[in-house]
């Protein structure tokens, strides 16, 4: 029997040392040298060096002066992240979407983009499709007394279009640029 127990325990200990300790340490070591910014959470700091968030984690924006993020099922909670998990046939989904559409719809701008009415998978989606930003341009421009064309240009500068994914705008980056105008 010891011919089974000894290798079982010693190999478990060795594999723990190799894959559970050495491997993460090596990755951490290389990552902290090669990509320190990303490895530490892609933090965004203000002029005084204070952390104002992460460029990958959505923030809640309210009021007319800001571009709003996608709705979050977990009210933008980061610990822990969560989704609505509403089934497509759940009446609660339709009720929520219709209620929000009534609040957000701007007369003359057509139907509200679906991204502004649906919660994301993480509740922390930092992006919006460009159409969903465009839908908010007039409101933000009016509140900040800026020409719509200025904001449109700002939006265009912030569109990311990867080859293998849909175009998106990072809402936090856009709002920070907005503050600097």
């Amino acid at each position, binding site marked *: 029997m010891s011919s089974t127990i*000894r*290798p*079982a325990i010693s*190999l478990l200990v*060795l*594999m*723990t040392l*190799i*894959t*559970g300790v050495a491997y*993460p340490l090596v*990755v*951490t070591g290389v*990552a902290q040298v*090669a990509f320190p910014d*990303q*490895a*530490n*959470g*892609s933090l965004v700091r203000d002029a005084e060096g*204070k*952390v104002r*968030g992460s460029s*990958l*984690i*959505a*923030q*809640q924006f309210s009021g007319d002066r*800001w571009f709003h993020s996608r709705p979050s099922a977990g009210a*933008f909670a*980061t*610990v*822990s*992240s969560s*989704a*609505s*998990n*509403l*089934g497509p*046939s*759940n009446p609660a*989904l*339709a009720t929520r*979407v219709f209620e929000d*559409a009534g609040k957000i*719809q701007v007369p003359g701008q057509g*139907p*509200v983009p*679906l*991204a502004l009415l*649906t919660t994301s*998978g993480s509740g922390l*989606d930092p*992006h*919006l499709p460009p159409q969903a930003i465009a839908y908010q341009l007039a409101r933000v421009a009016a509140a900040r007394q800026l020409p719509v064309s200025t904001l449109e240009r700002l939006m265009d500068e912030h569109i990311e279009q*990867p*080859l*293998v*994914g849909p175009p998106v705008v990072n809402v936090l980056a856009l*709002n920070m640029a907005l503050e600097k105008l």
Partner: protein
Amino acid sequence: MHSYDYWLIIAFFAVVLVPAPFLGRFYYKVMEGQRTWLTPVFGPVERVCYRVAGVDAQQEQSWQKYTLALLAFNLAGFLLLFAILLFQDYLPLNPQQLPGQEWTQAFNTAVSFMTNTNWQSYSGEATLSYLSQMVGLTVQNFVSAATGLAVLVALCRGIGRKSASTLGNFWVDMTRATLYGLLPLCLVLALFLVWQGVPQTFAHYVDALTLQGIDQVIPLGPAASQIAIKQLGTNGGGFFGVNSAHPFEDPTAWANLFEVAAIIMIPVALVFTFGHYVKDLRQSRAILGCMLALFLIGGAVSLWSEYQPNPTLNNPAVEQTAPLEGKEARFGTTGTVLWSVTTTAASNGSVNGMQDSLNPLSGMVALVNMMVGEVIFGGVGAGMYGMLLNVLIAVFLAGLMIGRTPEYLGKKLQAREVQLLVVTLLVMPVGVLVLGAIAASVPATAATISNPGPHGFSQLLYAYTSASANNGSAFGGLGANTPFHNLMLGLGMLIGRFGYILPVLALAGSLAMKKSAPIGQNSFPTHGPLFVTLLTVTILLVGGLTFLPTLALGPIAEHLSMGF
């Protein structure tokens, strides 16, 4: 669909299929102890492992000894992880001072990671310390995949060898699979993911003040190293609660491409490894053809379904387009569907969007992928040995049709082999239908279901299918963290894992002992289109017919009721 959707699909197949023949050959050489370019790096580590463990690498084991070693190693791994999860509050690397897990949840989690299921009834960032994630879970992520790979090569040897009494050495196979098979790819993927934005640090969570002055805690941790093996080892257990939907787990479209490709990269390569073991790569191409056919059928149905606007949201104030509830903007519909199909075809179970919010037929494709037994590429090792069981069943059926003793690659299939095959056919029905029915008939279950109507039934069906298939994905609205579900799903995972492994190793032992008959003109060829068709139909009939009634009650009823 836009041009970027097509580029994603093309790039996905390129990343998966182009390296597969080379990687498959590499795995054959590694598992047979031949020299590769990594031998100078890992050879010394390997020898130290054997010396400390008292293992003679040349000493091969009978199927019984091989099985015993596997069970002992898995039991030891389970006990260690169970203890770490229970007592993490007394252990180091717990900067958030999180308490130990409740025992049924710790049991569920330990079984889940030991069986390569990685079902999660907890949310990582809120319940697990860095030590639990790293020293506990990451290790089982590696060795459970290595265990699957070991079982596969044992079966390959059983089919390939003639009149042999041994199947190899489990300790050696597991060690080589971990060191050469998984670690190098993980290192590369982990660093790529950090570059794309996945955190990798031991620092505390960071307190931030948002632009509008709200306090926000940014969770961090050694995430990239765990996510790499979570994808490559077909594990699927996320570092964060919402898995790869979390922007820290899957930050960009490019990260998404490589994470989703990593899910089936090794399972596809192992199809070729099998061909090297039996010295006939035509067999590999035939099996790959069958897997690709099933994958493409499921993928097409799922894409078509998910691009339909949700009829219950029909309203002039709402944009009518492909549903976005539970999806991330950076992945879009195609990126989410591709992941959903891949993660359930392979027994990975990670998600980059919420399966619960998929349109009914997209959810059904995910269910069917699991119900056929995770053989469409499947888990590392597990997918290919599951597929070989289906191959043997198809050969047996063909034998019945032409009235000859069925044989596969010169090995006759006799009563003992067929009995073992039948045992494996019972695993999914027992796990899904028996355990699922018990769960459905317990009154307390109703409170754990979060959606009304047929979708609520689908949530329960999905959970028991996912556990039995060792997948780990979920219709996440189900309140799975109850003592009842934790224990029952834990049982389902054990049945789903060892209900295959034990008969497969017995089968391997039995086949290895047989003489090999020369393949003559009367043998049924197992590499042509006729056999691929027979195999595909067998998989769909055996898996599909068993579960069709449950699909009718769940996703099909939901689809019909929504007025698409």
